[in-house]
């Protein structure tokens, strides 16, 4: 985590990850667990540490707290040295290498391959909203189960309505911006 972001290829196959992912999908049980964790600071710390360790090992997770993995072929865009959430920069080499770390493959090239192999290439066309840096270090799973991740991205193509960049208000227990 303290390390600089560098492109990280997931340790698990695209097929396997897409197959496993549904077990994390929010359910009443997940929501109850998340709500209990929020009330128990020590349990939340242990849970968050376990999540960090798992996702660090598998995805190179940097604990942004607002997981984009389901829309990026389960390759983490926060491992891009520019932390781009909406696709690769223009500096990718012809061989697919990262411009900043030429020994590594661009994480978006990896994401595109993985998403395409699972028939999910269209996911990469979703517009990813700006990262909320207040979530950094928090459990993305808890945020996901409590519905705080809704609106991380939108499929709007801007043709009928202009897609709104704002996320629906997320209660992080922090002072609100005064209008």
């Amino acid at each position, binding site marked *: 985590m303290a390390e600089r972001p560098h492109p990280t290829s997931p340790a698990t196959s695209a097929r396997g990850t897409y197959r496993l992912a549904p077990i994390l999908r929010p359910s009443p049980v997940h929501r109850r667990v998340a709500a209990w964790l929020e009330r128990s600071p020590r349990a939340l710390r242990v849970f968050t540490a376990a999540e960090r360790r798992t996702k660090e090992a598998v995805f190179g997770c940097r604990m942004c707290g607002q997981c984009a993995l389901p829309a990026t072929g389960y390759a983490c865009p926060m491992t891009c*040295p*520019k*932390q*781009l*959430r*909406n*696709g*690769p*920069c*223009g*500096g*990718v*080499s*012809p*061989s*697919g290498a990262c*411009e*900043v770390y030429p020994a590594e493959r*661009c994480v*978006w*090239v990896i994401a*595109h*391959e993985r998403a395409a192999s699972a028939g999910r*290439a269209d996911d*990469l*066309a979703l*517009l*990813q*909203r*700006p*990262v909320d*840096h207040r979530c950094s270090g928090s459990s993305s799973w808890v945020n996901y189960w409590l519905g705080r991740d809704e609106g991380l991205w939108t499929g*709007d*193509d*801007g*043709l009928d309505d*202009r*897609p*709104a*960049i*704002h996320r629906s208000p997320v209660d992080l227990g922090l002072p609100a*911006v005064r*209008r």
Partner: protein
Amino acid sequence: MSAPPQLRMAGGLRGALAAGRFAVTAEIGPPRGVDPHSVGRSAALLRGWVDAANVTDNQGAHVRLSSLAGSLLTAEAGVEPVMQLTCRDRNRIALQSDLIAAATLGIPNVLLLTGDHPRFGDHPDAKPVFDLDSVQLVWTARTMRDDGLLLSGRPLDPRPGFLIGAVENPFAPPTDFRAARLGKKVAAGAEFCQTQFVFDVAGFARFMAEVLDRGLDTRCAVLAGVGPIRSLRAYEFIRTKVPGVHVPDEVGRRLRGVPADRVAAEGVAICVETIQALRETPGVAGVHIMAFGYERGIPEILERAGLERSARAG
């Protein structure tokens, strides 16, 4: 928009695109130093030949005069500026503040990009910011202009009125995602797009076919990036050291196939031919000429490519 009208050029980039005229933009690199006339000198070479000129934002992560100041000096010299703004050095607060500044000072066009990583610049020890990415920055500018809102949700009154541009590199992997990526920028609000150098016109035409397929050309004008390679050293540099540029071997063969004193002329000839081929490529709305340190040669290139001065003198 209540911008000072003296900075508005007749027609300009917006006018050229609205009229469906083949648009021409070029690039001005602000100086490293405080010479107040340097930008004006570069701009004077382009006056009348281009619809607008980009003013780069610490290009290649090398410290220069800011693009905001450079844009004002460009406008003063009678050339419509396109202010480049990158996500590299500013968080969302500073980005929005600079967009407000640009609109307040009457800069009619902004080009919003991610920016080169500081590692390649003259301050590799700098903190890379990248708080927003280029798609999100385009989206932010569009929200400020069309919805009159900041990212905080606070109202912006009066609203800016700038034309919003973005960039794309049709040749960088994953190449079959590049048109879709431009589509994201268009959905976010990009009205024009300048591309990385095009030397491989056939490859570019394949990209444009997908742009047309997706209907993006009707919402966003694509200006193809071009520029002359005037020496074998420049050829090697651009081929190996500039991230994301694809130079086909054919270009090298032609440059090596002429006597040493003819390489520069051959490079210019290749550039002229590329522009002519791009004018025939479906969906291409114009060209963006990048000729670092050779701005004086731009009029000749345009004239030989059949893009006369009279059409854009204003």
